[in-house]
């Protein structure tokens, strides 16, 4: 099994979710994170002094899929999350040794 971690722009979450649903992926876990990279932040002002905020709000999406479902899932994510502007984010793929569904103790692909 593969774990796909995607860091995307927050307002793209809904579209990505729908895109994944279309390729049959019905489970995922998301977290609010802050991202630092090429995309420049904005400046804020407090009592006359300005400072730059360069950690930008992003959404981190984690999906564990069967090996063969991987390519489809990655494509779905990248195409749905793309705006073409700096800061669209990244997708990272890694390997999962085992997956277990707590409720049923099913393991492997059945657990997903």
């Amino acid at each position: 099994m593969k774990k796909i971690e995607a860091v995307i722009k927050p307002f793209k979450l809904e579209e990505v979710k729908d895109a994944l649903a279309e390729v049959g992926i019905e489970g995922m876990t998301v977290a609010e994170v802050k991202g630092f990279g090429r995309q420049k932040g904005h400046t804020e002002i407090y009592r006359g002094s300005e400072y730059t905020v360069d950690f930008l709000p992003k959404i981190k999406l984690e999906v564990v899929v069967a090996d063969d479902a991987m390519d489809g899932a990655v494509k779905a994510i990248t195409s749905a999350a793309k705006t073409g502007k700096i800061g669209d984010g990244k997708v990272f793929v890694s390997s999962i040794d085992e997956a277990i569904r707590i409720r049923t103790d099913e393991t492997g692909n059945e657990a997903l």
Partner: protein
Amino acid sequence: MIAALFAAPLSAQDAAGGNEATPGTETAGESSDTSTGTDPETAGGGDAVDTPAEEEAAVLNSGDTAWMIVATALVLLMTIPGLSLFYGGLARRKNVLSILVQCFACTALMTLLWTVYGYSVAASGDGQFFGDFDKLCLKGVGVDTLNGTIPESVYFTFQMTFAIITPALIVGAFAERMKFSAVLIFLTLWFTFSYLPVWHMVWGGGYVAEKWEAIDFAGGTVVHINAGIAGLVACIVLGKRQGFPKSPMPPHNVPFVLIGAALLWVGWFGFNAGSQLAADGVAGMAQLVTQVATAAAAFTWMMVEWITKGKPTAVGIATGAVAGLVAITPASGTVGPMGAIAVGAASGLVCYWTATSLKKALGYDDSFDVFGVHGVGGIVGALLTGLFFIDAATGAETIENKLKGQIVSVIVTIIWSAVVSYIALKIADLLCGGIRSSEDEERQGLNVADHGEEGYQL
């Protein structure tokens, strides 16, 4: 000249209406014996019952009493929750509770101190710098004792709310790094040896009032300059917060800052119009100029920030409003609407410059700009009060002597408060084994370090 312009509406009216009455004189119609918040005779409320002259004149007016009971509630509202939220929102999340508790504890503590000896030392007796002990624990003050047209109990509680907010204002200067125990000790000493004597000097018929007839209708010197200087001294003695000014320390809850500013604004009507101690035309005009000056200051701060920084901030417009409220305080009994706009605009400009440029230049860490807003705003207001004053009785402008009186009262207050603050901090230092929280406590935040609580579980 210029004064004539800004105070015009008043005097013009006085002519037209064929009525010499003007705030600050003895002939202001039916509110004569309460029209001058700065009049030695009446400011020391107790006197009302001592001098036989006023004895007979003294009849309770239910309208004045109704207004003053409410004004008292409004001024308490300024401290809790008004000021608490204004400061609490400006703090970082990890310190919000320490601000709120300091404001609350100050409210409780000063209430007790004012009752036990504060009122007597400030308002009873006629020494040069301190009053006497005749009214310790409200001795001789009962249900039927009057001060002018209102019960003395109301005058006492109204003035108590001033004694509460003044030390509370200082909290903003040393916020986020001072031990809670040290805060309580420092404020107690400062209240006793700076607030009370300055009150007596300015409002209790003491040195400043008697020798210089300085005008401080609602507390520009007694409250704001007094507290602003104490804040400056305290934040310098304490030193900067870790990371200041390198790492930004943005407010953790800006909506709280604006709620707080709004409640200060609303409550300030009790502060300024209430200082008339009656529900009359002077009180009405005091409310009017308070509203106008505050709007002018908020608007000025907003525009200046917009032009110089490119964006008008929420914290900016709120701070501007407070600056205006501070500056109009001493003038609210004598200035006219146009004068109020001038006072507001001036304080907006000057306080913006102090809180941003000057502070950066000098490098002191006045956490929430207590000096920048209250100290400087108070000074601006005190001086303009003298500038825009017109003695309507004679119609003659007496700017020179007026200004002199104002300048003296400002200087006296600055020196007195600075000296007392420094000594008080040193004493607190000894008693608490240091007034500053430990490095780890400061990093962890004073919510948990001092009060064993976190602000939110969100």
